[in-house]
């Protein structure tokens, strides 16, 4: 075969090979959307918020991880599923409730649960109590509040009282779960304190 006959095929092969080699070398073929992590992979949860907002954000993020792990789906798929339209299955509701309790236990074990006294002011700001009762609670020393209330108990009670099926049926987006849980936690802190004060009186 003459050199002239192979020159063009040779140049073409070099051009195609060169272009594809450079593209693959720079990541061609792997320019794809981020893949969700494995459902039960360990994940560090941090929050940029403060107070009850930070507590509930961490609680919900850990719980969503745990619930996804229980259901063997990715965290993102689980969230998009529960935030989307449609009926939630018993498995989803049960997994989320159990996961929220798991999250409280994990935060207690990590010693990352704040004392109840840290949450009182914010909870009272969000509540609409009568002035006298609110003044009495605000006057209580932190040590008395922390002795009367354990944060994990308050949270567990709040989780038990949550109507998760109704809450999930009404979610508009994946992060709204956090907002709803935050309201429930604030209410639980206030209700527990009011109950204790009433007991004392």
């Amino acid at each position, binding site marked *: 075969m003459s050199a002239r006959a192979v020159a*063009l*095929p040779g140049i073409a*092969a070099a051009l195609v090979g060169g272009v594809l080699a450079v593209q693959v070398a720079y990541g061609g073929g792997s*320019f794809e959307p981020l893949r*969700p992590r494995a459902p039960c992979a360990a994940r560090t949860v941090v929050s940029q918020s403060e107070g009850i*907002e930070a507590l509930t954000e961490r609680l919900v*993020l850990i719980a969503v991880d745990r619930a996804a792990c229980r259901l063997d789906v990715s965290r993102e798929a689980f969230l*998009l599923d529960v935030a989307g339209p449609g009926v939630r299955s018993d498995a989803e509701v049960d997994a989320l409730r159990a996961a929220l309790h798991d999250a409280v236990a994990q935060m207690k074990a990590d010693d990352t649960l704040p004392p109840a006294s840290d949450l009182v002011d914010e909870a009272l700001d969000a509540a609409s109590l009568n002035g006298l009762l609110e003044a009495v609670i605000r006057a209580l020393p932190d040590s008395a509040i922390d002795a009367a209330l354990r944060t994990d108990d308050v949270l567990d009670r709040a989780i038990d009282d949550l109507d998760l099926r109704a809450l999930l049926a009404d979610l508009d987006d994946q992060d709204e779960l956090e907002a709803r849980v935050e309201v429930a936690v604030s209410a639980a802190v206030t209700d527990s304190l009011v109950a204790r004060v009433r007991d004392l009186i």
Partner: protein
Amino acid sequence: MRRAVAPLLAVTVALVLADSAVVTLALPDILRHLDTSVAQVAWVLISFNLVLALVAVPTALAFTWVPPRVLSAVGIAVFAAASAGCAVAPSIEVLIAARCVQALGGALALLGCLELLVAEYGERRGLAAWVTAGVVGTATGPVAGGLLTEAISWQAIFVVQVPVAALAVPAALAVRVAPVPTDRHRPAVRPHLTLALLSAALTAALFLLVLLLVDGWGRSPATAAITVSVVPVAALAARPLARLLRPGEEVETAVGCFLVAGGLVGLAIPPSAHLAWTVAPQALVGLGLGLTIDRLTARAIHLRLPRVEHAGWTIGARHVGVVVGLAILTPVFTADLEDAQAPAQEAIASLVLDAPLPAQDKIALARALGDELTAQQGQVPDLHRVFAAADLAPGVRPAAAALERDLDSQLERAATRAFRDSFLVGAGLAVLALLSVVVPRPGRRA
């Protein structure tokens, strides 16, 4: 006037063949302006190619009875009138009907112009002028359409064709042509098969690339038009290269098919959404286009009688290829775009959840992003609106800007991934075209 006749006829050929893909970049504007569906708007593209494919050969038969200059003039006039009709179409149905008439006139104009150019320049030069005008038109159609849409409107694409075509009518009537001979040669099957497969592959290159650039990567039609101009520029560079190396007709065609296949694989795997990554693969496609289409067309027509009928076969084969390419690729990338939505949503959810932003800001952004995704169902959403409208504290704006960049990157990644299989199918069609060239003919010894 006499000197302008042949160039005007060549420009008419380029115009008609440019119309095959000229509306590609205008489809989103047409969709919005005529308030129609994606499925319907695709017929603005398909109808022209389908009618051209179907009527090319039957139209060629008419040239045996009617003088070519008369049929050419009638065809160009019909094409011009239908172009005007497209520009003023008040509904998608009228636009599609006008495109069908445009294709009918276009078929007459294309075939007639071949006879007229041969009469003006002689067999070899006339055929070369006709083929080159067609290649230039095919390759520059999306570029011209994109620039006109961006600069003026989608209607401008059709408006600019009217005066050029109107000038070509007297030019056609001015040419004296010998009657079409009645001798008949059989159509060359193999070049037509290769042309059809290659046209299907090139449809993938041009049609999918502009869609990826505009709808997937969010570039303007003008940017997309300038970007895809690499293809015609590279196509022009192919001829000097072939003249320099003189590899032989079949080798040249086979190499062209290989380059188109390689370019399409390159377009399937860009390392990022930067436009620069499309340049080299497009150059490969352009070189392949320049080495193949004119060679195959000339081979199918040269010294075969009646010339106009064989030209009809080549036009039919090319546009059958375009329609088949659209028919194969449209469902593939539509399904892939739908499949890309779930991974894209999961990636967005993951980034929002892990973003270093206060919880309330994340909740507000997640709500707005959800609304945007719902509002732009079926299209790649514009997330910038969400971030521009978000009420964020100055301290968290850098983190929000980083999140916006990450989310945009995820959307670009999802869109690129969604187009991958379609480009690879296009590459497969080019490989089939290559096989149709290199597989020995039955009864032919190696």
